[in-house]
């Protein structure tokens, strides 16, 4: 008993082959789309790699790029095969390759699903990576003379301008570190020295007083002032940005997976019905197509005891 058996006339088979040809080409286009989205994500992550700690998040864009390329190749081949299946002589050329091709496509479709799940699971690692990375970036903000860190100030400044955010969790992160390099502090001045000595680590911390000090500025109340500084933390801003990108990519991967699944099903039906037609000896007649030859409800026929 075959699993999900369907009967195909010659006409139906030809129509199926044509529809599959179109589906394959649509899948090639989605493969290209996936590839470019993977590339875009890779570029976006690399643009801000200075702000992310060492975590394994490069696997997501790499996987997307690989899936995109393989989708293009597999569906390109599939399109050619389906186009040729309408013609009997050409089909015979592909006969032997068809089953291995279907196995590859099945395995690949599974990979695409895994890829989609990976996209959604990236969130936790990304948050941790950003948290650590931004903490380090804020700490090394003042080190514009240390090789390897001299552009961190510029990167953080431009990040805060572009994403309209301040600090890691909020603006108070800047109160806890020294973000002015010692090169620009006049160590001969009394108040500078006082401030340095006022904390254990000898850091020049400030603005815990200036921003919270309502009398330092005219007509200013720091508790109600909302528009002066960006209130959002950069970690949240960046996380939202990347999550948005990855979610749209994940959706595209799911849609690609659906297309691949339908292509896989259609090609399997086509393959089985063409082979059955060949077995019957006449490809122009009706033949059965199925997904699995021995279905789950396959019961071996009862052995009829021979009448003695």
């Amino acid at each position, binding site marked *: 008993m075959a699993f999900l058996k369907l009967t195909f006339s010659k006409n139906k088979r030809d129509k199926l082959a044509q529809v599959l040809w179109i589906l394959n080409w649509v899948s090639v286009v989605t493969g290209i789309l996936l590839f470019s989205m993977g590339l875009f994500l890779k570029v976006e992550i690399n643009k801000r790699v200075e702000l992310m700690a060492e975590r394994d998040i490069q696997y997501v864009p790499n996987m997307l790029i690989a899936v995109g390329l393989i989708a293009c190749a597999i569906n390109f081949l599939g399109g050619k095969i389906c186009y040729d299946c309408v013609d009997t002589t050409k089909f015979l050329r592909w006969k032997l390759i068809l089953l291995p091709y279907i196995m590859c496509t099945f395995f690949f479709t599974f990979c695409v699903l895994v890829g989609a799940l990976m996209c959604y699971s990236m969130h936790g690692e990304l948050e941790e990576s950003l948290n650590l990375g931004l903490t380090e970036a804020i700490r090394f903000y003042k080190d*514009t*003379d240390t090789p390897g860190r*001299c*552009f961190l*100030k*510029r990167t953080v*400044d*431009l990040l805060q*301008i572009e994403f309209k955010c301040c600090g890691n969790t909020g603006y108070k992160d800047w109160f806890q570190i020294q*973000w*002015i*390099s010692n*090169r*620009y*502090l*006049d160590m001969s001045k009394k108040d500078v020295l006082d401030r340095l000595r006022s904390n254990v680590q000898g850091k020049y911390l400030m603005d815990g007083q200036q921003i919270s000090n309502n009398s330092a500025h*005219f*007509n200013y109340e720091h508790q109600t002032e909302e528009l002066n500084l960006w209130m959002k933390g950069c970690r949240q801003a960046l996380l939202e940005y990347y999550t948005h990108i990855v979610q749209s990519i994940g959706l595209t991967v799911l849609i690609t997976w659906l297309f691949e699944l339908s292509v896989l099903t259609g090609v399997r039906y086509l393959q089985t019905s063409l082979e059955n037609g060949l077995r019957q000896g006449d490809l122009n007649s009706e033949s059965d197509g199925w997904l699995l030859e021995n279905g789950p409800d396959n019961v071996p026929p009862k052995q009829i005891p021979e009448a003695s």
Partner: protein
Amino acid sequence: MPFMPVKFNLQKRVKLAQGLWMIYWLSVIVGILIFSLGLFFKVELRKRSEMMDNNESHLVPNLLILVGLLAGGVSAFGGKVCHDSLDPVKFAKWKPMLKPYLLLCCGFNVLMLFTALLCFLMQFAVYLTLAEGLKNSIKFYKDTDTPGRCFMKRTLDMTQIEFRCCGNNNFRDWFEVQWISNRYLDMSNDLVKDRVLSNVEGKYLMDSVPFSCCNPGSPRPCIQHHLTNNTAHYDYDHRIEELNIWSRGCREALFAYFSSMMNSIGASSSSPSCWR
């Protein structure tokens, strides 16, 4: 005596008609391109119209949009005619319209060249509008409570950040205007009162610039106040300090942006009229 006569047999005529059909369809695409370039230019002018005192001339983008649409229409019609001219029956239908159509095409080509020329010439107008507009923008920077001007501060700040520029000609333009609103000045403070009284117009002038003039690439945190006073900051000499704030003026920056846009649009709209 006909001007530049050429002999055509049937084969050559067919090939010519086919070639012209392709060129006409390419012209339709180019027409769409010019239309979208005109639209893009119009949108950019609108985006920066506050910097130009809402006074900018939309002649060039409007002409480009018109020319783009006309090019599309004329070329599509021409393509249809060329396609039909291969069949003598269909050609007879178009025969009376051909002469006026060719005259229209000539006129249209002239219009296209004129538009391309305008793209190059109107840059002077844009320059003058920018100069006047930026001067007023800087003057109205502090008026965040005046309806119609309350977003001027934000727009000017974003422009200075985006185009990496400061002031009209340079950062010293900010020294000549009061860019802090009186609402945030403590008039009971003696220092404030002295400064306001120290000039004829009673303005609170300082040698400071807004934060948007700051260059994030500077190795030291931004110095935006007391710019000309070396003793106000440790290890600071305003004569040699280059990286602290943007040294370019916004008029120059914006003009460079618009002029490169207009030059490329002018160049790309003059080439199709050549092959028409």
